[in-house]
């Protein structure tokens, strides 16, 4: 579950990028975060991922208040939130496979099990047979899928993606959306920031619209307005809060996605 309560975000003494945002996302939802460029979509996702702190207000992710979370516990929350940023942040000094292995090395997983999970993740995103290639040898779409494989390999409970299909051709973008859809089907909560609402049609159950707000400031999604009517799948969906889907076993093998409960810091 993700809950924003009167969240403000500004940088330095500048005006608010996000102002008085409040909404709630139930586990297993597939949510599109839409809005024009510069509206604060990326900032919203970074706040959920704990990559940025809010200026004011409280953010709950799986029952953990991020602003109250000690710095030592933050990494354990991040393990439960898979993040795919606009820039893929792949490491070009190692193979594609080694990139996917990194989150599992962080967990200290047994090498055999880690390799099996990394291979499964690459297979899931359609990158089988490209394990030994350097990311620079992959196409833009493949690099994006590699970033997705890295984000899902440790089975996060929540997956957030910032413009994951930007600069991709239609077919590749659709393939990537299908991958997200599959993950959502096994119970992973999905938030995707995109301005390509047509592409999202038929995938996202509801939409959070981030747009310039009242009083000349940027407005976030207000309580009771968390599902503004719009075209596409979001318009067809009921609800301010979609019903959480039952969480089936993920296809990557092993245990289902873990909740974001901080473990004992190592």
């Amino acid at each position, binding site marked *: 579950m993700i809950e924003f309560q009167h969240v403000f975000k500004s940088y330095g003494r500048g005006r608010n990028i996000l102002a008085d945002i409040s909404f709630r996302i139930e586990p297993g939802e597939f949510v599109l975060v839409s809005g024009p460029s510069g509206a604060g979509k990326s900032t919203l996702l970074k706040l959920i*991922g704990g*990559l940025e702190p809010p200026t004011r207000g409280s953010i709950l992710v799986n029952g953990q208040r991020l602003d109250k979370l000690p710095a*030592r516990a933050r*990494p*354990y*929350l*991040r*393990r*439960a939130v898979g*993040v795919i*940023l606009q820039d893929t*942040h792949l*490491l070009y*000094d190692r193979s594609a496979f080694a990139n996917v292995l*990194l*989150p599992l*090395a*962080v*967990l*200290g*997983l*047994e*090498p055999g099990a880690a390799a099996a999970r990394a291979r499964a993740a690459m297979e899931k995103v359609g990158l089988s047979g490209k394990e030994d290639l350097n990311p620079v040898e992959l196409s833009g779409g493949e690099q994006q899928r590699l970033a997705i494989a*890295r*984000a899902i390999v*440790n089975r996060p409970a929540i997956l957030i993606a910032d413009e994951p299909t930007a600069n991709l051709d239609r077919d590749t973008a659709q393939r990537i959306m299908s991958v997200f859809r599959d993950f959502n089907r096994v119970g992973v909560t999905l938030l995707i920031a995109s301005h390509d609402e047509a592409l999202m049609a038929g995938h996202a159950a509801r939409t959070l619209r981030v747009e310039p707000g009242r009083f000349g400031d940027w407005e976030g999604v207000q309580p009771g307005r968390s599902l503004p009517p719009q075209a596409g799948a979001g318009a067809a969906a009921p609800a301010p809060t979609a019903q959480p889907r039952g969480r089936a076993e993920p296809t990557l093998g092993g245990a289902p996605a873990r909740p974001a409960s901080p473990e004992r*810091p*190592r």
Partner: protein
Amino acid sequence: MKSWLRQHRYALEITLRRLAAQPYSSLANLAVIALALALPLLGSAILVSVQPLARQVSVTPELTVFLKTDAPSGAAAAVAARIRDEYAGEVDPVRVVERDRALAELRRNPAWEEALAVLPGNPLPDAVVATLAPGPDLAARADRLARDWRQWGEVDQVQLDSAWVQRLEALLRFARIGLGLLAASVAVVVLAAVFNTVRMQALSQREEIAVARLVGATESFVRRPFLYLGALTCAVASLAAIALAALALGPLNRALTDLAHSYGAEFLLHLPGAGVLVLSVVAVAALGALSARWSVTRNTRF
């Protein structure tokens, strides 16, 4: 526990990969640290070799009173008795070394045997050796007694036997302090070299650190490869420094042996014992890890 060990193994692999990725830079860094460490190591080799020499010789101040060669027989015993009577509290014990016994002892030394053989008689005087009783300000007391005794009629000269040992002790004390300062300077050099190496590594690994944090790496996980880098670099540099010092002692000892033989003596420089060397390697590795931690904490705040 197994997971913790696996993370350490991963950190070690990352460290070795980073070192191997820049072989020339890594080697140059190792060479600088090794050369810096070799200097105090050579200094300590000299100290540990000379110290036993100073210990073998008594540092208790002794005054030797040489009588005139024409002094009558029994004059030495009289002088000894006078010292015992008049300076009872200041000297203990007092012994007479007769000229014939002194000559016999000297003849036992092969270096002197030939020279003494050509002399017509015994050139040595009778002597009285007085050991100063323990007490404060031995040097001042020795000076005063020597001044007093030189006034006596049968006495030719008075010599403070342990002066050179005391000088050697003072020199060694000076060398120990110098070596300590040199070691401290080298420690600063090692700290600075490791700090800078880790800083450069941290900057070049900025993307990897950011990604590791993104996927949930703890700060310990991020820091660990850098700590290994510091510790490993310093440990290998220490071993290289020991090898360098051992190599340098070879020609030094050859030259020193020739010099010592010309004085009829045996003297060799040697490195401190294995225990001390192992402890030094561990201490330098710990210093490297400490410096690396400092550097990585400062340079990965992004």
